[in-house]
């Protein structure tokens, strides 16, 4: 149970009950966001540090808004303004921050596993805000929340995750997240954009988007890094768009299936510009729900007081 964990590092740590608990908590916080004063004192006196080793305006702002709505104090440690460039080790940096007294550390790092390492070294709760190609659990939770608002229970629903799966933490997180909630997950990409091995992954894999598009409840598009052309993984972005992009023709075949994207979008690459503005494209809802989900995560880990007591959870 997540309530018994101090950290949120990977969707692999959450079972279906944990996710259900977070979803209902998210609903409570979504309500807070609708108040004329969307702020509660739940984390008053708590301090959260942002440890962002990778640029991320969106995720940072989303977490920042969530923390402020919970009345937490925040402290920002960004790479450009820090001693990271002076050769300080990650551990020294983290210990310096915790010495100032923090209750939570939200970590974004270009290296897979960085939040797991940080969690080994500190008493504070560590929240993974995206690590390399590995995991992005709060993105998955907001995607689940958004999908459930439209589709209800995800059991048996068919989700395609399309595009650069190999280099995507969102894909790894979401494949686990949707499958845990009972959905059928299909990964769609050329082999150059897929991981090499799928043993143990609860997914199907295809290289042909047209083969699955008529059957989908959710078409989840990933951001295509524009520099991938240089890595010789796709001949050109134009060809990628033709074979794997959600163009108007394919979008018509989706019917009212949801179109999702973690942002920022490359219009004209993974998604046609016009398609992104269709009513079944819920991309801005995803962003809005991100704040509520992150409030739920921050509250559960830092404010709920739920923790292990003698190896058991304290009675709620």
């Amino acid at each position, binding site marked *: 149970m997540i309530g018994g964990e101090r950290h949120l590092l990977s969707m692999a740590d959450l079972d279906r009950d944990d996710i259900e608990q977070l979803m209902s908590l998210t609903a409570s916080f979504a309500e807070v966001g609708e108040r*004329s004063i969307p702020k509660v*004192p739940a984390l008053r006196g708590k301090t959260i540090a942002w440890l962002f080793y990778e640029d991320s305006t969106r995720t940072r702002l989303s977490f920042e808004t969530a923390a402020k709505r919970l009345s937490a104090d925040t402290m920002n440690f960004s790479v450009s303004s820090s001693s990271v460039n002076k050769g300080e080790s990650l551990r020294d940096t983290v210990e310096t921050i915790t010495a100032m007294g923090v209750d939570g550390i939200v970590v974004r790092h270009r290296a897979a596993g960085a939040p797991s390492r940080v969690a080994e070294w500190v008493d504070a709760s560590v929240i993974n805000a995206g690590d390399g190609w590995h995991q992005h659990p709060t993105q998955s939770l907001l995607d689940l929340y958004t999908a459930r608002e439209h589709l209800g229970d995800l059991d048996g629903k068919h989700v395609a995750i399309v595009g650069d799966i190999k280099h995507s933490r969102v894909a790894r997180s979401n494949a686990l997240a949707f499958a845990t909630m009972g959905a059928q997950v299909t990964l769609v990409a050329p082999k150059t954009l897929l991981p090499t091995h799928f043993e143990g992954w609860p997914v199907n894999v295809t290289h042909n988007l047209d083969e699955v598009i008529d059957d989908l409840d959710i078409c989840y598009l990933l951001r295509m890094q524009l520099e991938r052309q240089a890595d010789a993984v796709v001949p050109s972005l134009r060809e990628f768009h033709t074979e794997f992009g959600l163009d108007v023709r394919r979008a018509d075949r989706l019917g009212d299936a949801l179109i999702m994207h973690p942002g920022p979008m490359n219009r004209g690459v993974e998604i046609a510009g016009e398609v992104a503005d269709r009513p079944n494209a819920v991309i801005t809802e995803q962003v809005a729900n991100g704040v509520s989900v992150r409030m739920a995560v921050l509250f559960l880990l830092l404010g709920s*007081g739920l923790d292990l007591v003698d190896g058991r959870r304290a009675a709620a």
Partner: protein
Amino acid sequence: MSADDVSRAIRRMAHEILERNHGADDVVIIGMQTGGVDLAQRLAADISTIEEAEAGSVPVGTLDATMHRDDFGLRPVMPEALTEIPVDPTGKVIVLADDVLYTGRTVRAALDAIHSYGRPRAIQLAVMVDRGHRELPIRPDYVGKNLPTRKDEIVDVNDEGVDLGDLLGEGDIT
């Protein structure tokens, strides 16, 4: 206190709310999650009946004040249910309804929470049972029953009425 006693007390409180506010205009009843929701609905229904108005004429909402509590860190805290404030409370008379008034801390949290939705003209408090032991300067406007208790007793308000039990469980001393 039997179920009939409870019904009579609610009816009396409904009359008191109407008398005090010169009718039901601008009155919004908000039930505290989760114990006060039933009382709020019954008060609203009785007021409609007394005023010979349509059912549903008095707006009823629910409030979970968990996030405004002052005991974070002292015990596990989780929101129990959704908050739903049906109208903008600004300029209205909010009647907060709860089953049991004890230390007053939940009411304080609720007063705090209400203000994040707007600025009511007045907030009044209706409780089924006032068991004493207040820790804050809070008093109820409408009381179903004053029930002196010891701190180690529990008060259970349910469909069958109101019971006084022991903390060790359902009146059985083990």
